[in-house]
């Protein structure tokens, strides 16, 4: 494989002007997805640092790497983290985690923290699945639906396409919006066949942006099926990598008839699950210490 267009940027970040040493409770959340691994550190319930990277072939290593990277340059050591919750696909394979909680609970909790108590519906589009989650004002899950049968409507699906069309994944969304006229969505639901369908369109001489538009709207309508099934309620937010794909988000908003709350600058939508995990970690830590 020559250039890997599907590769999204891996990065780490420490939030400015925060002194973790001053914090009473430092907890961590590690979200090992099938495609990306995220490590989040919070201090007294405030986001402090995080990292996002691709999941390797071993979860424990990925967890370790992600956490090390999040710690990088903070002067903090793993031992300074008092409690860690693992979540995501590899949640039980996080060596240094005290407990595992599913990504469904964690995403709801994280979304509640990022966007506030008005959030009722969370759409999380992960690497190989897509979840529609209902939650209450405390971020507690009340219902959820999950699609992990079909790549249409998953991050991988989008990667496959970026790759196929040699368009860097971050540019897929904007490019798909640059069309004058919205084309028919690709009809195949299966990504692999949507792919061959797209190849057909390119052969017919369609420009890339048209093909991307056709795929993004197919993906949007695919996701909307999930949302319609669970009956999407306001406020509605999107977590996971796809939230960054304006091409899908805009079309999705058109289908369901209202907008998702905008992304918050300091919170990458990919780390919602990690944040949720870290918040559970804090609560669990406090619980155990009250008990003790």
């Amino acid at each position, binding site marked *: 494989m020559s250039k890997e267009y599907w590769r999204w940027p891996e990065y780490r970040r420490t939030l400015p002007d925060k002194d973790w040493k001053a914090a009473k409770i430092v907890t961590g959340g590690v979200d090992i997805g099938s495609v990306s691994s995220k490590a989040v550190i919070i201090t007294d319930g405030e986001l402090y640092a995080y990292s996002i990277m691709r999941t390797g072939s071993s979860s424990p290593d990925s967890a370790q790497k992600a956490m090390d990277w999040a710690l990088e340059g903070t002067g903090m050591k793993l031992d300074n983290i008092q409690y860690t919750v693992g979540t995501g696909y590899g949640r039980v394979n996080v060596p240094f985690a005290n407990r595992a909680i*599913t990504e469904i609970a964690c995403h709801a909790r994280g979304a509640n923290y990022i966007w506030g108590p008005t959030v009722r519906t969370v759409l999380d589009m992960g690497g190989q699945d897509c979840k529609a989650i209902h939650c209450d004002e405390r971020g507690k899950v009340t219902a959820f639906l999950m699609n*992990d049968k079909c790549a249409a409507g998953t991050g991988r699906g989008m990667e496959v396409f970026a790759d196929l069309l040699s368009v860097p994944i971050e540019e897929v969304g904007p490019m798909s919006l640059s069309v004058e006229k919205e084309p028919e969505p690709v009809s195949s639901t299966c990504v692999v066949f949507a792919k061959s369908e797209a190849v057909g369109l390119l052969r017919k001489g369609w420009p890339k942006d048209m093909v991307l538009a056709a795929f993004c709207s197919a993906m949007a309508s695919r996701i909307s099926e999930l949302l319609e099934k669970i009956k999407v309620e306001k406020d509605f937010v999107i977590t996971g990598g796809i939230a960054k794909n304006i091409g899908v988000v805009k079309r999705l908003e058109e289908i369901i008839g209202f907008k998702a709350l905008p992304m918050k600058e300091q919170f990458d939508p990919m780390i919602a699950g990690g944040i949720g995990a870290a918040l559970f970690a804090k609560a*669990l830590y406090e619980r155990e210490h009250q008990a003790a």
Partner: protein
Amino acid sequence: MQQNLFEKFHEWYENRHEYAREWKEKTRGKVLGYFCTYAPEELIYAAGVLPVRILGSHEAQSVTEPHIFAMFCPLCRDCLAQGLQGRYDYLDGIMIAQCCLHMRQAFTSWRKHVPLDYSYYLYMPHGVQTPRAYPYLRGELADFKKSLEEWTGKKITDQDLDHAIEVYNENRHLMKRVYEFRKERNPKLMGLEAMEMVVSSQMIDKEEHNQALKELLKELPERNVKREAGTRLMILGSEDDDTEFLRMVESTGATFVIEDHCTGSRYFWNEVVPQKDRLSAIAARYIDRSPCPSKDWPERTRLPHILKLAKDYNVEGALLIQQKFCDPHELDIPAIRSHLEKNGIPTYFLEFDVTVPVGQFKTRVEAFLETFQLPTDLF
């Protein structure tokens, strides 16, 4: 691990074929495989024939591809695969009591491609809510009885029927008593154990099964259960003997306390109410039993029945599982879900295939359980 009172049933479940072969050795009798639990086993049993339910083996296979179009359910293909692969080579015959289109295909393809000296298609009515079904089925049973007599060369007397009815009723009665112990705050048995108990009863001589049940009932009250019950779950939907799945769920801090499956309560819930005319009595039992969705119309009698089970067994949440492409259940599940939810019982839906992706299902089940289990002070 708690002392294992259910070992016998587990062995029977695991070694169903060995059992049947030995039974033949021992008794020199005939074995009749049946599809779907609408089969009037009392008649077969009365004929001195061992009725054995045909089920799948939950292994990926590719032998049924030429026989059944992929839009039909995994169960009917898995069952047919057993026949085509010779796993039931000890069967002297097969029969089906008319049920869904899916299973009928497993039967007709088996009949065509697996050598047998006997097969019978019983035109079991679908209209189990019309009183006209009673005399009709009584007549169909008479035909079946006659056919069995011709096959075995042995007359089926009223005494034979009475005995069969007695044995079968006792089996149903005993299993219901075992189920009582699932109502306890900390159930004396797990869902997996219950399932293996019921399914094994579909494969072995009921009299032997009754013996085992009596043994079990002696010790069960004293059984000391160390493990926590966790969330009390109900499971319902299509045919389900997916031990791997049940084990997975019960390993995540939950217990199945009741189910509505043809591999569970639905199979044995009601008994034959004796009448002077034995065939009428048997016909009535199969018409009045808790139905498969393919026969549950025009009224939806399953809704009150399922809700009652949920209440009686103090269920906290329900897992609805459905064999992929199982139309009858697809046609009931939306109504059942809303009925349970309306009555305060959260539900979660899962679609089954020949093999289930336990990894992915684990996440969903855990997430569903977390909605009960995560302490509220964590929020």
